[in-house]
Every structure is written in C-alpha cells, then in structure tokens.
C-alpha cells in the first residue's frame, strides 16, 4: 500500500502550552484510521494542522511525497484533504441542496479548471451525495432546521462532495442516536474504497467497528499505534484511556 500522508515531528504550541509535540503519522491510501485519546490530548489540534486551519510551529506534512506544510486551508482542500467540523459548521440559512452544491461546485472547478456553468451538472452530483448519506428527502430543507443527526450527515455529505483523498471526520457521531450511529458506520465503511479516512472518535464501539489502525494520543504525543486488537491489549493505553 502506498503512503498518502506523512508527518514528521509535527508540533504546535500556544504560548507555553504544548498542544501537539513531535507527531510522526503515516497514513496509507484507502485505510480508515482512528485517533483516540482523552480530552485535551491534542487530537483536534493535530487534524487542524493537517487540514490547514492552524499553522504548525515546527515539523512537516507531506501528501503523496509533496510538502504541503505551509499550504492554506483552502489549498489543502484543493490537494484533497477535507475536514468536517467537530462543531457542526454548515450554511445554516441555506437549503441542504445549496450546502452540498457549494461543495460540488468547488470540486468540479478543481477537477475541470473552471467553475461549472450548467446547474444540471451540479444537481446530479448533489442528489447523488445526498442519497449516499441518506438525506435526499431533505433537499429543500433549510440546513438550520434539520434535526441534529441530519446536520451531522449533511456535514459529511459536504465532505464527500469535495471528493477528498483524505477525509478527516472530527467526532462525527457525537450526539447521534444509536440507530443513526449504525447507519453512519455503514456509510463510512462504504467509502473506504475511494478515500482515506481519518477519524477522531470517543465512541469506542464505532472505533473498533470501523478502524483498521488506531493511533492513541496523550498530552500531544503519540502514545501507541496498532490494529484494534493490539491497542486493546496495550496496557499503557488502558491505563491512560480505556480503563479511565
């Protein structure tokens, strides 16, 4: 398997606070990777660095062997790293259709080099993505009026519509009902053929069900890395996280 994303000694500090410290991460194409760890472990900071919302204090990020450390967030999206927000961030005053259409349009512009001129091209893709996540009935609903679970799905739909190489999901199941989680897991599993997925998740059931590899973080550092079964067996991890 080819390596998609590689970080070397990635660090970020805010003033005196070391949020992320010397992280070396290696993601392969097509894998589903979960990052776990207690609150304040630096997970969100790490993915913020990857997605360009924050600039690293030191260290490098490579995507397909290309150094993208200093790219802005929007450029990183153009190179295929797409982030979906931990705190749902949608265009709340616009319809679901518009929300996804904006993402589709951006994606098509990247792929074809110019903004699409025909709405019909966009409509086709929007409907496909909405169906994929299962909220096609809500096409005309204003995003702000959606149920919370559906908002999370819309968030994922916008991520998908960008056709990422690497999709970063920041606590996607937080606040979802049991049945919704199930639906979500099957959705994600279906995606792993076409993209790499980096998942930050607290719900261990989801992690164990989806992840092929798990990275455990604590106090800004990587504590352990391995398959779900390896991690489960790891006592250090149990102490700091699982055993609580």
């Amino acid at each position: 398997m080819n390596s998609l994303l590689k970080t070397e000694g990635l660090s970020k500090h805010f003033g005196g606070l070391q949020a992320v410290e010397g992280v070396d991460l290696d993601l392969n194409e097509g894998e589903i990777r979960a990052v776990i760890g207690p609150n304040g472990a630096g997970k969100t900071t790490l993915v913020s660095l990857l997605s360009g919302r924050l600039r690293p204090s030191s260290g490098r990020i490579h995507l397909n062997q290309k150094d993208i450390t200093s790219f802005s967030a929007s450029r990183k999206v153009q190179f295929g790293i797409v982030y979906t927000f931990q705190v749902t961030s949608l265009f709340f005053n616009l319809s679901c259709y518009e929300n996804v259409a904006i993402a589709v349009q951006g994606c098509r512009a990247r792929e074809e080099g110019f903004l699409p001129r025909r709405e019909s091209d966009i409509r086709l893709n929007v409907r496909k993505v909405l169906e994929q996540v299962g909220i096609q009935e809500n096409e005309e609903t204003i995003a702000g009026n959606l149920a919370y679970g559906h908002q999370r799905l819309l968030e994922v739909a916008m991520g998908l519509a960008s056709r990422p190489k690497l999709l970063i999901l920041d606590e996607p199941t937080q606040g979802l009902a049991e049945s919704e989680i199930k639906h979500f897991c099957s959705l994600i599993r279906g995606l792993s053929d076409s993209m790499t997925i980096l998942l930050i998740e607290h719900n261990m059931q989801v992690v164990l069900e989806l992840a092929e590899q798990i990275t455990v973080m604590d106090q800004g550092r990587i504590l352990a890395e391995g398959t779900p079964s390896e991690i489960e067996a790891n006592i250090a991890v149990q102490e700091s996280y699982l055993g609580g």
Partner: protein
Amino acid sequence: MNRRSPKKTAVLMAGVLLLLFVLQFILPAYHHSTFSKIMVLASYAMGFNILLGYTGLMSLGHAMFFSTGMYATGISVYHFGYTGIPALGIGVLCTVLVSMLLGLVALRTSGVSFLIVTLMFGQAVFLSILYFDQFTLGQDGFTLTKELEPLVLGNASYSYTDPTFKYNAAWFLFALSLVITNILIISPIGRVLIAIRENEERTQMLGYNTYLYKLFAMTLSGALSGLAGSVHALLFSYVGATFAEIHHSIAPLLWTLLGGVGTTLGPLLGTGIMHYLIDFTSGWTSAYLLIVGAILVLLVIGAPQGLMGLVRQKRLPWLP
C-alpha cells in the same frame, strides 16, 4: 436563494424594467426628473448591495468609489476635453483600480476592522479631493454644463441633460445593474459569495480561496458604484466633494437596509422611499436627520431584513 425560480425572476425583473420605462410617459415633470435621479442612485446602492447583501461585507466608505468614478469622468471632461463615453470608460477604469487596491489592503482585515478601514479610506479620498484642488476645485467642485459635448449616435445628437435622454440613460444604467446583479447571484461565483456571507470559514474549508472571491466582489461592487458616479456626473453636470463625504457612504447602506439587504430590487425601493420621504417631510420639518436616524435604529431592531426581505419571508420565497 433557496427556492430559485428563474422564470418568475425573469418575469418580475422584466416587469419592473418595463414599468420604469413606461413611467416616463406618465410622470409629471418633477417626478420624471426625480425618478431619473433615483435610478442612478439605486444603481449605486446596488453596487453596494453586491458587497453587503451577497458577500456579507459591510463597507462604510463606498462614497469613495462613487466619487472616484464621478471625478475621473468629470476631470476627463473638464480638464482634458473628453466626450462623455470615453470619460465614462475612464471613470470605470479608475474605480476598478481604486476598489481593487482598497480590497487588497482592507480585505486583510475582517469584521468590524473592515468597516472602520473602509470608512477611513473613504475619508482619505474625501481629503484628497480637497487637497488636490487644482484638479478637483476643492469643496466647490465644478460643473460640466459648458464642457460636455452632446452625445452623437449616428446622425442624432443628444444633450446629456435633456430630460428624455437623462431618464433613458438612467434607466439603462439601472437595467444594466439589475441584470448584472441577477446574473451574478445565479452564477457559480454568486453561489460562492453567498457561501462566504453565510460562513466564510466553512467556504474556505471547501477549498475556496475566499480572499480572491471577496476581492472580486469588492471590485465589481466598486465598479458598479463608480459607474453610477460617472453617469451622475454626466447627467447632472455637477462634480463636487459632497459626493465623497461620509454621509454619502452611509446613504447606500440606509437605502439597502430599508429596501432589503440581499434582494435585487431592495436598493431601488429603499432609494425611492428615502428620497420621497425626505422630499415630502422637508415641507414641514428640516429635522430629516432625525427621520434618517430613527429609520436606521428601527430597522435594525424591528426589520433587519428590510422591505423586500419581508416580502420574501412572508409571501414570495423565490424572490431574488
């Protein structure tokens, strides 16, 4: 924007334009001339609305674009003897330059800083007009009555200040602005601008370089406002510093808010209502500052969406 209806929109816009066109044969002299002015000023407000209504950027310095267009055109005619059309071109060119330059600096800031920065640069343009008085003739300004050659089209020649010509030129400018605005908002660029207005960070995280889009919006907005200023200079023959004052920057804000931010017809409605409101009330009170102030306060408290916004909310959800 949510439930678009291109057909209804096209019919409505055509209807409004037709109505305005026909009105010139009906209106009595005073209102005929007032409507010409309102259409020019509404075009200015529409330029402003592209930035505020469709990109979510509130500028308090738009008079600088209006006056740049006005002065560039006016000076070309007054000092360099250009005729109307080339002078108009020079006006637009200058505004494009100015709005782009301002955008490059001001768009580095966001939120309220952007507001204050545009306000200050607007003031700087006003001061420059006073300072370079050998070209601008300072506070007094100048008139184009004698310098401006009539417009020759084929065999016919039109005086810019002839009422019929004035009305139709103003109508044409208004129609142009309306068409540009409507095309913009159904275009992919307009979709991105609206996305920026709604949630800029999210738009960035979908891979858009929002700075460039905002720069585009700023330039287009400035160009339209400047075009209105150029046309104003030609049709109304006067170029003066009053058009660069801060009050003239607040005016399109007021008109747009009243008519409906982010609606294509709002600026026209707001401009018209304000113009007539001040005109009527000036008969019995000179306290129109109070009227302006009270309307601003009441609008933000009671109806921030403005009149057309209310119509959209209550009756016509497809209204652009």
